[in-house]
């Protein structure tokens, strides 16, 4: 039986409070780090743990920390709580149920890279999350975990909350930085990466909060313990979000490398209403979908990549046999079309074009050549935008076409869906 790490306190009463966090072993990694470790030793430990980013891209955390310049340069840490990828709801739960775990991770990360100012960027819709963040930060200041000379170590760190205002794209790290600077959340061209030119032009480390929540545990229990969880290239625990047609929707913390079958049938209770499984989106709306016969795939970065998909945020959306895949494509495209920041022409126009084709297919007005055009537009967008959103919007369409082409064609030839009456 896997012992929960990140969500271990979620079931406790008032799990969000500093007292409950401390009573359950919280803020023990921090004094250890501040008094016994040099910053570079912390970076070495995180590198050795194999921790990879949990926001979608899976970049090795230790390497990211190592990219920031050493020495007395003004640097910043940004804490990404801008969760908005359809299917994903782990970050909201992390903030609402155990914010101090993240704060401890932020302080340790800031110490490791030499930053004295950190900013939480939280999605504007997360009203309870904003309140939890503010309360948690106030309490951490009051106990001396934030502010000047933290725990008599000589290390200073200020942390504050910045509320976003409704834009999915601000979860992308450079768009997040733009938004923090008080601008429209439009991604920057990379390189330069934020590690060298970030917030106000300074070196900046941007991390998803689930990534940061792992840090205190790595310090407390060691890199070796952490690296032993999961697979050799995808280490540690992961919070999977399961939604759609299963019995028990919700979050499940399991080691990376767990099979999709185990997640859906042992943990999420199997298919609701005893319907047959049709398709699964494994890592949030922007990841290519899998077919029902791919149930034995393991959920880790390398296996999903090998299968032509991605682990993404670990948000598993389950669809049963009664689901119209053209409708799924249309819904996802409506999301991407709405959330395109408008900066790159391929993303701005292709999402609108694809949505209009998908809508006419769905309305029974599809014409011969529409499906081909849809595919052409999706392919044309791949790799041609500043940020990964161009690929993200094309992925569900291209994978849907690959797996369920017949269903798309049927919409054209019959003017209706073969699945939904």
């Amino acid at each position, binding site marked *: 039986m896997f012992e929960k790490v990140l969500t271990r306190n979620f079931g406790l009463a008032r799990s969000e409070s500093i007292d409950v966090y401390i009573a359950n072993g919280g803020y023990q990694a921090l004094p250890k780090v501040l008094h016994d470790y040099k910053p570079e030793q912390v970076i070495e430990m995180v590198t050795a743990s194999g921790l990879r980013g949990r926001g979608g891209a899976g970049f090795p955390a230790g390497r990211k920390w190592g990219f920031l310049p050493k020495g007395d340069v003004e640097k910043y840490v940004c804490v990404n709580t801008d969760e908005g990828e359809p*299917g994903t*709801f782990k970050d909201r739960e992390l903030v609402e149920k155990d914010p101090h775990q993240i704060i401890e991770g932020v302080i340790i990360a800031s110490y490791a890279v030499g930053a004295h100012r950190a900013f939480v960027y939280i999605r504007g819709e997360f*009203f309870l999350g904003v309140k939890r963040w503010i309360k948690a930060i106030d309490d951490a200041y009051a106990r001396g975990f934030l502010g000047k000379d933290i725990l008599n170590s000589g290390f200073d760190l*200020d942390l504050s909350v910045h509320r976003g*205002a*409704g834009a999915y794209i601000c979860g992308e790290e450079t768009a997040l930085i733009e938004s923090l*600077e008080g601008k*429209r959340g439009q991604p920057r061209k990379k390189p330069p990466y934020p590690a060298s030119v970030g917030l106000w032009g300074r070196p900046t480390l941007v991390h998803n909060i689930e990534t940061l929540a792992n840090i205190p545990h790595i310090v407390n229990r060691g890199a070796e313990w952490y690296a032993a969880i999961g697979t050799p290239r995808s280490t540690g625990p992961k919070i999977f979000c399961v939604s759609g047609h299963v019995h028990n929707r919700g979050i499940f913390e399991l080691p990376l490398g767990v099979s999709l079958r185990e997640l859906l049938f042992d943990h999420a209770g199997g298919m609701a209403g005893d319907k047959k499984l049709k398709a699964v989106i494994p890592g949030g709306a922007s990841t290519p979908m899998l077919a029902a016969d791919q149930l034995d795939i393991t959920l880790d970065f390398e296996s999903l990549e090998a299968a032509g998909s991605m682990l993404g945020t670990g948000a598993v959306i389950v669809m049963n046999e009664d689901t119209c895949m053209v409708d799924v494509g249309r*819904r996802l495209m409506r999301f991407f079309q709405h959330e395109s920041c408008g900066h790159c022409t391929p993303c701005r126009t292709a999402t609108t074009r694809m949505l209009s084709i998908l809508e006419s297919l769905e309305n029974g007005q599809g014409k011969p050549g529409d499906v081909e055009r849809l595919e052409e537009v999706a392919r044309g967008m791949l790799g041609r935008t500043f940020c990964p959103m161009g690929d993200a919007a094309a992925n569900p369409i291209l994978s849907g076409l690959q797996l369920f082409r017949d269903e798309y064609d049927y919409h054209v030839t019959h003017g209706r869906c073969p699945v939904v009456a």
Partner: protein
Amino acid sequence: MELEAKVADPAKRSMLLTALYIAQEQYGYLTKDAVERVADRLGLPVSDVYSMASFYTLYRTQPTGRYVLQVCEGLSCHLVGGAERLVDYLREKLDIDVGETTNDGLFTLQTVQCLASCGTSPAMRVNDALYENMTAEKVDELLETLRGYHV
């Protein structure tokens, strides 16, 4: 603030999102006056501030009802009977279309993208509060409660 001293102007601009929230609360929505006042206080062009107000979906540039009902139209909400079905129910119940406000000025109906409540869908927001696992009965109850505050 210490940071402001360090990076002067850029930090001032960083207050823009917060300033727009404050203005929106004071004015009810971002009126021409509100936008001009924010621009003036932060030393930014009005067009620049308006471009921000129109980019981010949580800023309102039109008046709304007392309660803004935002129904999630995400995939996970749709799969379990939410999204349009919930929207259609509310349209009928309130006799307004999406984007409209009821005659008594109480409710505005909107659709929004994923609210990160996919495990507890269908989901909707009423002003800043999140409502999960919504059903027709729960919608009825909610509307009745909200109306009850204004009898």
